[in-house]
């Protein structure tokens, strides 16, 4: 996994609550047996018109948000299925971090395992950041994982919570399986109890 320390990127606001994993990556794209190739299908049903052309109204297709790597969304982002294809699609599209008032559990776990940082901030802060992104072309944020903070262009910083272990894994790009396997003896002892 790629390590995550600090990131500066353009911001795109997706003004919806309860964005579910069926929207993030619709099921017709879950048939692949590879881990790659999902980015182009991210938000497929919103992003493309019936004839396959990009939907000009969908926020990711607006030229002003091209190249965004930080997504701001409404509460309970990632609810629904456990498909890890959702974070894969987000990551392969180019997102490094997602900011929302809250996240669904399984989705949040899946993000950490793919080097994406899910950042929960208060609804007020999210609304303010989302508005700033709408009002200012080329709006950027800086994310400092070590300091657990999101820094705005004017220098205002918003701190966020993250578990020590998740932080450690992200900072070091750590393979969790390798971590658990160090305790093979404990696992064997447990199995023989």
């Amino acid at each position, binding site marked *: 996994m790629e390590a995550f320390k600090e990131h500066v990127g353009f911001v795109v606001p997706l*003004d*919806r*609550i*309860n964005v*579910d994993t*069926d*929207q993030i990556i*619709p*099921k*017709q794209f*879950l*048939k*692949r*047996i*590879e*881990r790659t190739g999902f980015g182009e299908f991210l938000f497929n*049903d919103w992003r493309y018109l*019936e004839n396959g052309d990009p939907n000009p109204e969908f926020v990711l297709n607006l030229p002003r948000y091209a190249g965004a790597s930080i997504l701001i969304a*409404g*509460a*309970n982002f990632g*609810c*629904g*299925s*456990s*498909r*890890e294809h959702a*974070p894969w699609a987000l990551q392969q599209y180019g997102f490094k971090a997602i900011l929302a008032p*809250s996240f*669904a*559990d*399984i989705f949040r*776990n*899946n993000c950490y*395992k*793919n080097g994406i940082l899910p950042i929960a901030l208060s609804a007020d802060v999210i609304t303010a950041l989302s508005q700033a992104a709408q009002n200012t072309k080329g709006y950027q944020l800086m994310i400092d994982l070590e300091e657990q903070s999101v820094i705005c262009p004017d220098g205002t910083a918003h701190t966020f919570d993250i*578990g*020590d*272990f998740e932080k450690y894994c992200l900072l070091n790009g750590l*393979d*969790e*399986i390798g*971590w*658990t*396997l160090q*305790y093979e003896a*404990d*696992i064997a002892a*447990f*199995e023989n109890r």
Partner: protein
Amino acid sequence: MKTQTMYEKIWEAHLVRASADEVPILYIDTHLVHEVTSPQAFEGLRLNNRKVRRPDQTFATMDHNVPTTDRSLPIADLIAAKQMETLAQNCAEFDIPLYDIDSPEQGIVHVIGPELGITQPGTTIVCGDSHTSTHGALGALAFGIGTSEIEHVLATQCLLQQKSENFEIRIDGILPYGVTAKDIILAIIGHIGIDGGNGAVVEYTGSAIRALSIEERMTVCNMSIEAGARAGMIAPDDTTYEYIAGKRFAPKGEDFDAAVERWKQLPTDEGASYDRTLQLNAADIAPQVTWGTNPGMVTDVTGRIPDPADMATADEKTATEHALAYMDLKPGTAITDIAVDRVFIGSCTNSRISDLRAAAEVAKGRKVAENVNAMVVPGSQAVKRQAEAEGLDEIFRAAGFEWREAGCSMCLGMNPDTLSPGQRCASTSNRNFEGRQGKGGRTHLVSPQMAAATAVTGHFVDIRNFQ
């Protein structure tokens, strides 16, 4: 004396390592695997030269994208076929038992687990599918995981897990006529919202829950995830032990008696406390119908489509507007005035034999309304055989329902069973997300009884007045 909830007991009994400054390592007793979320996990094992630690505690089946039509024909969808073939190869390579598409045991993973006696009280169960919470109906701690975690469990038989909050949802009283387990869980989600259970393991308690059969309990636990909960569980009791006795993988003879003695220690101790509690009265619950694009957008069958203007927050107003536009519904419309094009009876929520019996009772001697296409998809081959032995297939066919082979089918429409854009469907499944049953499809979640009644009348009806 220390008192504990059932969740705490199972949690503690499975800790391989728990030191204060580390993420706990939780042992997993049973790992269920299916074709859609596993290929990349096996690939990861191969890349890192790792083995499956306990193939004997791993079970695989094919359910998500299997066709539900004639199984003697080749699979038309080549990409789906490739995914199934990949699972078969992976199971062969890593020595994992597989109930493949031709197996008499094949079925939806959450239907066959309990059916085969793989699901047992007090165990930890995971699967790369969010509805793994279903297995909690037998007093197991069961939850869905992502593909990286599947790989983790394959390699280590463990997961790195933080303990969740424990949320008691207590339903006392007697369920009114026509009100089912599906209505209980939909009413709960309507009450607490689709994020009302976030971060929590829910234990369902109370006399109304105790009165449910195991299959009904599965319906309730199944949809815990639709309230955002990590898992849902119900304490084992005599109903549970009777259900498990004699199942293929259940302990036998003296071992079974010893197991029951152990299982009897599992229920939450008197005086143990939960982080949160919610109480509802069974008598207040009516048949439920969802009207929007998530399971929390639900109302009584006697209700009407809400007006976005009445919503408490701006976010909810926008979400309701979006949902009504997608669903093509007008505020104030009576639920019973909504006509449907399709009816789907199936999914890991409602495709077990008791669900099919309930639907067949309504369908018996009646005809599916003109312009409605209705299908019944049993949850497993075993359910299908049982239903056919009871003649339910004949009842459904005579009424004009299609009778299919087992699988997830139109619950998520990965196989050819999908809604066309704009079609409206009464479905016994668990998710009414946009496009879930097919791009542009409009899903209303209901109980099997309500779905069957909707099929014959062509619009939603209150099953309580249905003659």
